[in-house]
C-alpha cells in the first residue's frame, strides 16, 4: 500500500443543520443498517424554557480519530487504518469481542446482529474509492456536512477549519478526531450527568 497524502475529514456546520435526519436515513439505506442501530445519527436537545428556548442538534458519526482507541484495542487487528486515514473494520477478521465498543469514547460502534461483527461509519469507503462523496454528505439538505482532504490547505474542509471556530468531541481523550463541528453547543457534545448524580435512575 503506497502512503497516501490524503487525510479525509468532515466538517459539520451546525448553523446549516436543520435536523431533518436525511443523513441518518441515507446512511441506513446505503448500508442496510439493521433496526435500532445507526452508523450516523442526529442527537437533538432543547435548551432553556419558553420563550427563551432553542434547539441544538449534533449529527454523530465515527470520528476516524488520528489516535484511535478502537484500533489500539482490537486484539486481532480487524480494525485498521485505510490509506486515506479512515478507520475501517475487516469484517472477515473481526471476532466480535466488543472490546472496541467499550474503548470508543464516542459510542460510534455497534454489533451488526446480521453479520455478527463490529460495525461503524467508514466515511463511505466504497463511494470515496469511486470518486463519490459519502452518502450523508451528498444528501445533506442544508449543506451542513462538508467532506474533503484535511491535508490539502485549499480544500473546503481545511478552509472552513481555518476560518471558523471549530470544535471536536472530547478533545481531552487525546483521540484527535477528524470530524469537526462549527457552532456545536457544549450541552450536547458529551454526556449529561445532571439527572444521574442526585441518586437518579
Amino acid at each position: 500500500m503506497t502512503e497516501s497524502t490524503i487525510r479525509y475529514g468532515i466538517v459539520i456546520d451546525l448553523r446549516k443543520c436543520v435536523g431533518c435526519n436525511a443523513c441518518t436515513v441515507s446512511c441506513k439505506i446505503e448500508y442496510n443498517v439493521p433496526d435500532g442501530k445507526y452508523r450516523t445519527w442526529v442527537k437533538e436537545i432543547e435548551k432553556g424554557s419558553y420563550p427563551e428556548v432553542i434547539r441544538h442538534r449534533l449529527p454523530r458519526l465515527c470520528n476516524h480519530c488520528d489516535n484511535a482507541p478502537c484500533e489500539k484495542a482490537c486484539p486481532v487487528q480487524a480494525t485498521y487504518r485505510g490509506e486515506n486515514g479512515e478507520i475501517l473494520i475487516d469484517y472477515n477478521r473481526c471476532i466480535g469481542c466488543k472490546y472496541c465498543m467499550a474503548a470508543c469514547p464516542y459510542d460510534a460502534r455497534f454489533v451488526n446482529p446480521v453479520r455478527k461483527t463490529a460495525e461503524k461509519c467508514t466515511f463511505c469507503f466504497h463511494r470515496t474509492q469511486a470518486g463519490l462523496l459519502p452518502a450523508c454528505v451528498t444528501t445533506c439538505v442544508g449543506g451542513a456536512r462538508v467532506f474533503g482532504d484535511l491535508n490539502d490547505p485549499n480544500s473546503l474542509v481545511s478552509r472552513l477549519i481555518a476560518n471558523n471556530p471549530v470544535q471536536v468531541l472530547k478533545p481531552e481523550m487525546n483521540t484527535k478526531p477528524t470530524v469537526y463541528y462549527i457552532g456545536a453547543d457544549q450541552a450536547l457534545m458529551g454526556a449529561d450527568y445532571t439527572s444521574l448524580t442526585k441518586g437518579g435512575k
Partner: protein
Amino acid sequence: MDITYLANVEHPVQLGYLIAIYFFYTGLSAGSFVLSTLGTVFGIQKYKPIAKAAVVMAIALLAVAPLHLIADLEQPGRFYTLFFRLNPTSAISYGTYLLTLYPLTCVFYLWFMMRKDLALGAQKLTGFRRSLCAFLTFGKRDLSEAVLVQDQKWIKRLGTLGVPLALMVHGYTGFILANVQARTLWHTGLMPLIFLMSAMVSGTGLLILVLLITQRFFSPEKAITPERRAIILDIARLMMWFIVVDGVLMLINFIVLYFGNASGYAAAEMLLHGSHKVSFLGLEIGIGLVLPFLITFWSKTRKSLTMVSLASLFTLIGVIAMRINFVIGGQQVPLSGNTFNPYYAEPKHLIFIGSFALLEVIILYLAFKFLPIYGIEESKKSSTLKMTTPTKAVSAP
C-alpha cells in the same frame, strides 16, 4: 439551564455477565495458585500440604475461564485467530498468550509435585485409579532420593515462573479495563491492583471451601484432621489481611473517584445511590468484605470452621458482585446520553454461565476423586488423632 433530550440513540452495555464471571474465574485461579506457591516457592513449610489442592483448583478454574470469553464472542469460531494476529497495544491480545502459558506452567508444576504420589499410586492403588496413576506418570516411576530432589528443584523453578504468570494473568484483566480511557470507572491505575487483591480474597475463599469439602470426602483419611484444621484457620487469617488490603484499595479508589471529573462522580454516585447500590454497598462491601472480615477477625468466630466457611462463601458472593459492578457498571455510565446505558442480559449467556459452573464442579469432583492429591494412604499420625480428637478441638496458633 433546562436541557430536554429530544433525540438520541441508545447504546446498550456490550460486555456483560460472561466477561464479569470470566474475571471472577481467572481471579480465583490466580489467587489459589499464589497460595499454592507459599509453601513451594516462598518456603513457608506450613502451607506445603495445601500446595497440590490449590494448584489443581487453579488449573481446573483456568480450564473453564476462557470458555466464557469464547462464548461471549459474536464469532466464536474465529477465536483461534487471536494467536497469530497479534496487536501489542491490546490487552486482550497479549492476554491470549498469558491465558495459554499460565495453565501449561501450572500443569507441569502440578505434575512434578504429584509424580511421587502417582508412582506410588501405580503400585498400591487398584482399578481405574491405578491405571490412571500409571498412565499419568508417563513412565517416570523412579522414586530414588536423587530424582525426588530433582523434582523439588523443578517445582521451585516452575512455581517461580508461575507466580509472575499468575499475577500477570490476573493483572492483565485489570489492564483490559484500566486501559480504556473512555470509561472513568475503569480508567485508574489501581484497577489491576484491585483486581489482584480481590483475586486473592476470592481465591482464598474458594480454596478454604474446596479444602473443607475435598479433605472431608476425598482424602484417604476422609476427615479434617487437626493439622488440616490448623492450616485452614491459618489461611482464613491470611484471607482477613487480603480483605483489609482489598478494602483499603477500594476505598482509595472511591475517594479519588469522587474528586474526579463529571463522569467519575456520576459513576461513584451510581454505585452509592443509584442502580448498583444494593449490589455495591450490600453485596460487594457488606457481604463481600465487612462480614467476612468480622468473622475472621473476631476471636469467637474465627476458630469455627462453620463460620470460616460462611465467610469464604461471602467473599465469593462479594467478588462476583464486584466484577459485575465494575464491568457492567463501568459501561452504564453514559458517554453521549443523559441516562444510564441499559444492559440486556442475553438468556443464552446466562445458560452458558450455568453450564460452565456445572462443568467446573464436575472437573473439580473428578480431579479430587481420582487423583491422589492428598496422598494414597492414611498417614498413621492423623488416623490416631482422628479417633481421639473431639471435633471442636482448637488447634495451635
